[in-house]
């Protein structure tokens, strides 16, 4: 029996046989994000945090649904041509994803990787396409400030003071449609080329107001592990972005990766740091399953397509906690998946 050629590289990273193209992408941002640093970069924005719905949960479901609608508007592919759709959010049992994808009649997998879900989805989708199981696969992750507060914290209008290391859950999300094969018209495109599935790491942080510190070790290990497996340095990339570590986690990752022999230098940043202005008082920055997908689709992808960035690492991070585990005093394991995305001129490869 002949096994297919192994695509594993080094100790735990993977390389696609042929890059998987990002065929289309769409982003949606809530009222707070709309006023932030990426103002004007989103496909859809909402002034009403309820999106015209009666409950917060329905609002997030609607956000997912409308983002997917926009995705198919921008794509030359239809839901019927989609072989897989991976979706995730932070609501219990991923209800926003269910409600968002329900109208589309696509082969659906709901995912939960906390705020790292976008990475999980991108990895699964590109691996399936590279493996020849299909030709097109969608990925969407969303989060909503109000559903996350309900799920993990206290009622919205309950008065409380938060510590400086706390983060603000992003209302918004991003969706991409991946397709096998080169762009038909020879246009420039961005493609997923390599990835690494993260391992969980628990360094004993039990403070939900400091999730950056809980996730930072996993992020440092995924980033250094990937660079080691391919014999690369941070400088080989134009941008290295972790998902939603915020200011505190960002500083810790810088410190740890430096100590582990892979200093990240000037190319490193974190999606959570890029969304809000200082005066928006979002403490350490943005977080949530929609944080990395929103920033990737609204800010990174356009720069790849314009040729301003050639090679990017996106490393969505997740804090694997639940409302119950927190109350029971468990510490918070972190996880971080990594995807390498490259800009292609459209004439090379294949």
């Amino acid at each position, binding site marked *: 029996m002949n096994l297919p050629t192994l695509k594993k590289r080094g100790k735990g990273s993977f390389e696609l046989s042929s890059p998987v193209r990002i065929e289309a992408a769409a982003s949606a941002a809530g009222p707070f994000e709309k006023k932030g640093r990426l103002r004007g970069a989103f496909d859809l924005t909402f002034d009403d945090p309820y999106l015209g719905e009666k409950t917060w949960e329905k609002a997030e479901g609607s956000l997912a649904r409308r983002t997917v609608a926009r995705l198919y508007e921008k794509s030359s592919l239809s839901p019927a041509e989609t072989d897989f759709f991976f979706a995730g959010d932070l609501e219990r049992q991923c209800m926003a994803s269910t409600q968002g994808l329900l109208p589309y009649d696509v082969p659906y997998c709901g995912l939960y990787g906390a705020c790292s879900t976008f990475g999980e989805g991108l990895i699964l989708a590109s691996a399936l396409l590279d493996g020849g199981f299909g030709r097109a696969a969608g990925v969407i992750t969303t989060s909503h400030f109000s559903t996350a507060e309900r799920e993990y914290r206290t009622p919205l*209008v309950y*008065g409380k*003071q938060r510590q400086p290391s706390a983060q603000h859950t992003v209302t918004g999300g991003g969706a991409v449609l991946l397709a096998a094969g080169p762009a038909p018209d020879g246009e420039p495109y961005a493609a997923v080329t390599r990835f690494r599935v993260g391992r969980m790491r628990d*360094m004993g942080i039990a403070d939900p107001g400091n999730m950056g*510190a809980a996730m930072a070790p996993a992020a*440092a290990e995924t980033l250094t592990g990937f660079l080691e497996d391919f014999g690369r340095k941070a400088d080989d990339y134009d941008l290295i972005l972790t998902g939603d570590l915020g200011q*505190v986690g960002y500083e810790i990752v810088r410190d740890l990766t430096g100590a582990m022999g892979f200093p990240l230098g000037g190319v490193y940043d974190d999606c959570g740091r890029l969304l809000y202005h200082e005066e928006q008082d979002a403490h350490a920055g943005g977080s949530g399953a929609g944080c990395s997908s929103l920033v990737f689709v609204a800010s990174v992808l356009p720069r790849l397509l314009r040729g301003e960035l050639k090679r990017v690492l996106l490393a969505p991070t997740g804090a694997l906690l639940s409302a119950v585990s927190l109350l029971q005093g468990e510490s918070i394991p972190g996880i971080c998946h990594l995807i390498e995305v490259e800009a292609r001129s459209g004439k090379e490869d294949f």
Partner: protein
Amino acid sequence: MRVPLSREEYARRIQSLTPSSPLPKDMLFAFLTGGGICLLGQLFSELFLSLGIEEKTAALLTSAALIAVGMILSVTGLYAKLARYGGAGTLLPITGFSNSMISAAVEFKSEGMVTGLGANIFRIAGPVIVYGIAAGILYGAVYWLTGLF
């Protein structure tokens, strides 16, 4: 590649990278906010007394008035905004108790009047009541026992 630190070493290492709450500022704001709410209560009290209401009744009315103020500020979202800066100053006065119940009521209305609002209205205030009563019983027992001798 593993992070070459034990949990203890990690906790120590990140200490300098994790900003702590600005305590003097927080305490000053808490003092001013809490003090402001108490001042408002005093004004209510003076008002009721000046209307010729008996002192005991005036005290009850003052509590009720503050609870009402807390309610109104809560549903408009202003109490949450105030609490961002006021901290313990908004938590401790009776307006904070009012806020804890109203916020839960508003929040869980979407799951129905009985299974949502009814079941969750004491979600935050409940423990205060439970342990308040328990402490009251304990105090009463001690008071009664010391009275025996």
